[in-house]
């Protein structure tokens, strides 16, 4: 265990980690200072105190984090900022009131006033955009000032608190001392908070300033003629293009202020799309589709995230081992790993490995499966229970199938289907390697399925898709997808999802999970909305995944319905896993036919006779008469067809009587 702990690195959240580190660091600093100032006897107590203080501070930091994120996320406005600083100032004053060290108080106040005024001034300069350098240097000097100031304050408090009582801790002054330390810690914490706020703000401004410095002064949107000229010359260098992307991003973010007069937004958009396509090597069609999904900044992040590989993750096979034992065994082989997150009990994330992770004796003995983090999600949403009958419609290479089997503890039956015969080999190999004894592997087109076998308790449909979520894994998607591919795929997906819904047991409520590794709405929300429209007894339910973004309820003029918000989307740049979509559908028990007889059909018929062809029908009535008996047969057949399509259960024997 010790070795593992030693190998362990900080969690991959640099921002929080950094802040923790700074908190700890300043905590250490306090320890040192108090140590210097006080006598050796007091040292131990002080150490304890500061320890508790740092802990408390860390806690408070966590508490304050969301607030900060909110602010940074919503794009801080100037009034907000000033308000905030004044808020914290008043809070601070209130805090300090009980502590009547007047010189400190006044100095503190000075500091804050300086800060707030500086904040406002920097903002006012930010508006004018041209004094970027000035603001930056000003900020820097100020922060240094502040640091020295802080030190002064600390020294003051320390000398004050220690000087008055001659460095000896007694029962009488103990409380006072600890109180002083507490207050000091609180003060520091608030200062830290201010600092981080400022630095964040500075970062933001800084990045904008950078843009200003490098790009904006030289940035001018090329005209159509210039673009044509450029394309004729075979494009420009990458640096220019990257600069242009940055410039366009900036302009598009604050279009009304920064756009050149007379240029429309669409010109900027088409320019940035062309540049992204060139820079990252996509075809323009796909770039445009992906670009439409996000706002400008997020789109850039998304394209950037597709260039870096996702972390390697493995799933411990609970049929053979436990995650802890597996982690221990792999650590002994020189693999550096860590649990994948709170949401999974089986997942492990591999940071680095001295041995090939796909050929260790543990792997061969079936103790784990190499599996992307995103492919845990549909199975978690499916939530299989022991002794059920489950269908995995497109299952190769078997990561999800074996996970289902493990969740069922090798009871019940899992049908693992895949349409490609060659891929069923690896599927079957994985099923056997992981010791899943309840799996039946078959090779059908998924669309044949309710005919082959129905009555499943749960169906997982991880549909074949364009793979726009896994571009980092398979970059060929960047260039080989066209409009036609998307049409064909979504058509196939719509057929498959209906087959999946029809394959469940009609006598009870069952679950269908639809997932893809694509981020396109037409492969995800549109398909689910189609299924909801076609099968009235299906509804979408919360997937049981506590993270991920909500599904889109509408997209570029298409309305999918509000219920689609219950679906979950995952993005590489947000969740650091493949782009993924999961929707959990509840297929309700089909209603009896009696409840469903509607009287809409006769009125429709009446309407048909009354319309403009009515005359014609009347005129030829002599020759053409209605045979009510024969009509009834066709009408009945038609009605049954309609009800079936709506998902009602229709009795078969009745049809035999009437039709034949």
């Amino acid at each position, binding site marked *: 265990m010790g070795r593992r702990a030693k190998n362990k690195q900080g969690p991959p959240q640099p921002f929080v980690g950094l802040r923790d580190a700074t908190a700890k660091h300043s905590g250490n600093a306090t320890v040192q200072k108090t140590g210097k100032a006080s006598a050796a006897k007091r040292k131990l107590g002080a150490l304890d105190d500061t320890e508790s203080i740092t802990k408390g501070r860390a806690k408070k930091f966590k508490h304050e984090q969301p607030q900060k994120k909110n602010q940074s996320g919503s794009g801080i406005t100037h009034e907000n900022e000033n308000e905030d600083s004044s808020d914290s100032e008043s809070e601070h004053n209130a805090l300090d009131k009980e502590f009547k060290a007047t010189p400190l108080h006044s100095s503190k106040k000075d500091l804050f006033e300086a800060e707030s005024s500086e904040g406002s001034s920097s903002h006012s300069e930010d508006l004018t955009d041209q004094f970027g350098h000035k603001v930056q240097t000003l900020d820097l000097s100020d922060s240094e000032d502040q640091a020295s100031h802080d030190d002064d304050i600390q020294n003051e408090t320390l000398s004050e608190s220690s000087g008055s009582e001659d460095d000896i801790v007694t029962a009488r002054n103990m409380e006072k001392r600890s109180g002083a330390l507490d207050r000091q810690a609180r003060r520091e914490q608030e200062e830290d908070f201010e600092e981080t706020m400022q630095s964040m703000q500075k970062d933001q401004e800084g990045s904008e300033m950078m843009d200003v410095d490098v790009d904006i002064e030289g940035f001018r949107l090329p005209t159509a003629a210039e673009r044509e000229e450029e394309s004729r010359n075979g494009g420009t260098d990458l640096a220019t293009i990257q600069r242009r992307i940055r410039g366009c991003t900036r302009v598009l973010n604050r279009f009304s202020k920064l756009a050149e007069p007379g240029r429309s937004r669409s010109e900027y958009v088409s320019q940035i799309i062309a540049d992204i396509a060139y820079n990252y090597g996509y075809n323009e069609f796909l770039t445009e589709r992906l670009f439409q999904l996000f706002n400008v900044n997020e789109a850039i992040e998304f394209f950037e995230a597709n260039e870096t590989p996702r972390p390697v993750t493995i799933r411990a096979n609970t049929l053979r081992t436990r995650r802890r034992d597996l982690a221990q065994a792999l650590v002994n082989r020189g693999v550096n790993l860590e649990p994948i997150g709170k949401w999974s009990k089986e997942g492990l994330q591999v940071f680095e490995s001295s041995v090939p992770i796909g050929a260790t004796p543990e792997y*061969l003995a079936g103790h784990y499966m190499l599996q992307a983090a995103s492919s845990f999600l549909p199975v978690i949403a499916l939530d299989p229970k022991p002794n059920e009958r489950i269908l995995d419609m497109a299952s190769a290479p078997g990561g999800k199938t074996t996970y289902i089997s493990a969740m069922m503890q090798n009871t019940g039956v899992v049908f693992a289907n895949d349409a490609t015969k060659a891929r069923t080999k690896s599927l079957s190999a994985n099923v056997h390697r992981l010791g899943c004894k309840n799996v039946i592997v078959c090779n059908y087109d998924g669309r044949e399925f309710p005919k082959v076998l129905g009555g499943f308790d749960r169906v997982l449909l991880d549909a074949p898709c364009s793979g726009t979520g896994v571009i980092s894994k398979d970059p060929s998607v960047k260039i080989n997808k066209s409009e036609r591919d998307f049409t064909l795929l979504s058509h196939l997906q719509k057929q498959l999802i209906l087959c999946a819904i029809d394959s469940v047991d009609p006598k009870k409520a069952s679950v269908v999970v639809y997932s893809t590794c694509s981020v396109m709405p037409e492969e995800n929300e549109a398909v689910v909305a189609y299924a909801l429209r076609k099968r009235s007894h299906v509804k979408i339910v919360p997937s049981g995944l506590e993270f991920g973004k909500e599904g889109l309820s509408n997209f570029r003029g298409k309305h999918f319905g509000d219920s689609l918000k219950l679906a979950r989307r995952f993005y590489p740049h947000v969740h650091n896993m493949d782009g993924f979509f999961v929707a959990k559908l509840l297929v309700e028990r089909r209603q009896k036919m009696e409840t469903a007889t509607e009287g809409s059909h006769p009125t429709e018929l009446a309407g048909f006779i009354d319309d403009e062809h009515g005359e014609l029908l009347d005129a030829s009535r002599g020759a053409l008469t209605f045979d009510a008996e024969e009509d009834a047969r066709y009408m009945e057949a038609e009605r049954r067809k309609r009800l079936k399509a709506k998902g009602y259960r229709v009795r078969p024997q009745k049809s035999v009587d009437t039709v034949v």
Partner: protein
Amino acid sequence: MRPLTEDESKLVFTKLANYIGKNLVHLIDRPDEVYCFRLHKDRVYYVPERAMRLAASVARPNLISLGTCFGKFSKSGKFKLHITALDYLAQYAKYKVWIKPNGEMPFLYGNHVVKAHLGRITEDTPEHQGVVVFSMNDTPLGFGVTARSTLDTRKLDPTAIIVFHQADVGEYLRDEETLF
């Protein structure tokens, strides 16, 4: 998919008995569920009866595997155990061999077990007896046939072969194409 004929079951059971001996009855009389052997495309599968009945609705060309594959009948009519049967063999094995960590990889690459890699061995293992090979932390790695009895191994030199390799879990990677 069909049940085994008399001759076929005899072949399969004698082969299995070589490794698990009398424990063979535990495969047939199970307390939890009724299991059966089924032949499909020359391969013998061991599968719960309930699952087998469901698999019956899958057409023959489309059925790839069901339950656990035990092995296959070769063209000449002999039965060959596959590594996929290891789970059951390891569970009921009468004679076991444990190999040292430095012997794991050579064995997983398909080599015989030499004496230098031998960690432990079941006492009084006879010669030419089917044994299951384990790693020192009791992970089953494969199976084979002993070259010498336990007594004879004492006086052998370190490079002498103790267990002839028959199957190992490395085949999941090496022979994926032919195995399934």
